[in-house]
């Protein structure tokens, strides 16, 4: 069961998240909460992203364009990781011979 937080709860839960910052992050769609009749609802993944966004802007002093670049790269990185992981899982179901052959080819390519 996913737990959702209202906007106010989210603000309270994350140190360093100001109203202004939250508005910016929502406008740039760096965080996309679920829209409900009572306003946006934030789930755990949204909160984790908001914390990361706060780290980037508060602690690393990144401005909004830089944050957009970093977030885009992080998302691409996770996208690529997801593909690799899916590939690894698909290979895990293959026969020993196939896995060995792919493994050898991979080692050769990475050398």
């Amino acid at each position, binding site marked *: 069961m996913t737990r959702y937080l209202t906007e106010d709860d989210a603000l309270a839960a994350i140190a360093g998240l100001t109203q202004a910052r939250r508005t910016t992050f929502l406008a740039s769609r760096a965080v*996309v909460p679920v829209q409900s009749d009572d306003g946006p609802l934030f789930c*755990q*993944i949204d*909160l*984790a*992203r908001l*914390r*990361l966004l706060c*780290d980037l802007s508060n*602690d*690393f*002093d990144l401005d909004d364009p830089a944050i957009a670049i*970093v977030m885009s790269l*992080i*998302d*691409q*990185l*996770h*996208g690529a*990781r*997801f*593909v690799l*992981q*899916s*590939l690894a899982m*698909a290979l895990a179901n293959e026969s020993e011979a196939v896995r060995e052959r792919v493994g050898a080819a991979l080692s050769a*390519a990475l050398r």
Partner: protein
Amino acid sequence: MRLEPYDVLGLSSAATAAEIKQAYRKLARAHHPDLHPNDAKAETTFKDISAAYDLLKDAATRARFDAGEIDSLGAEKPPRQYYRDFSDATGNAYRPQPGYRAGFASGDPGDIFAEMLRQRGEDGQGFAAPGRDLRFTLNVPFLDAARGAEMRVTLGDGGDVAVRIPPGAEDGQVLRLRGMGRASQRGGVSGDALITLSLQANPVFRRDGADILITLPISIDEAILGAKVRAPTISGPVSLTIPAGTSSGRVLRLRGRGMAKAIGSEKGDQRVELRIVAPPKIDAALSDFMTNWRRTHSHDPRTTTLSGAT
């Protein structure tokens, strides 16, 4: 056992607030779990770094810590969940959604990679982006283009490659040498070398499609009496029969002596336009004969030309 916050940040207790922030930022960049999703130890390290920074970044808390009123555990916070912990969750809405889901649906790993490569290529920034194509212009002598030839081309970086000019190659035609372009940055396929042919003119031969055109000078006697003469073709001289009573401008066709056609195995023709050339010196014999001949056989070849022009 927790480390001393100053040690964690690599500072002395005399560090200024700016130094603390700088040290934290440097360490956090290197250890923030969300910036290093593959580093399993990043979380522990970053927890220590941020705990130390939390304690020292606020002047008041730092003063209390320095005075021994609170210990380093005072800054302990409930464990934080990082974005990377969720990134692999099913239905992560923040995961980029390019087209390769279609590849997964088909279940063929080849499709997945082809799709990934295609997308990287389009982005022009991915690890497997193909190398760029390189363009060159090659001056080709007329006969080499007509007959086909092998020429050597010096590519940008000093590499020297053989290029096969196909028979009947045309001006502006582009030959593609696969993989001879710039190498890919990271293991993708190399680009191609694109070679634009620039055909040089020839003083004897001209082209019209697959046909070769030449103008062949003949003498007055050859035109009147007929003759067997030698005519050049792109594949060497051949014997050509001039019929008796030939006028300038008459075109003789040498079948199959042209160039290979683009489609099929047929060849074009060579069309030979005859041009009567007066002898370099008109001697008395010729002059006398012509004078007599005019007196008795005069004819006007311009009658139709003149009437058609009015």
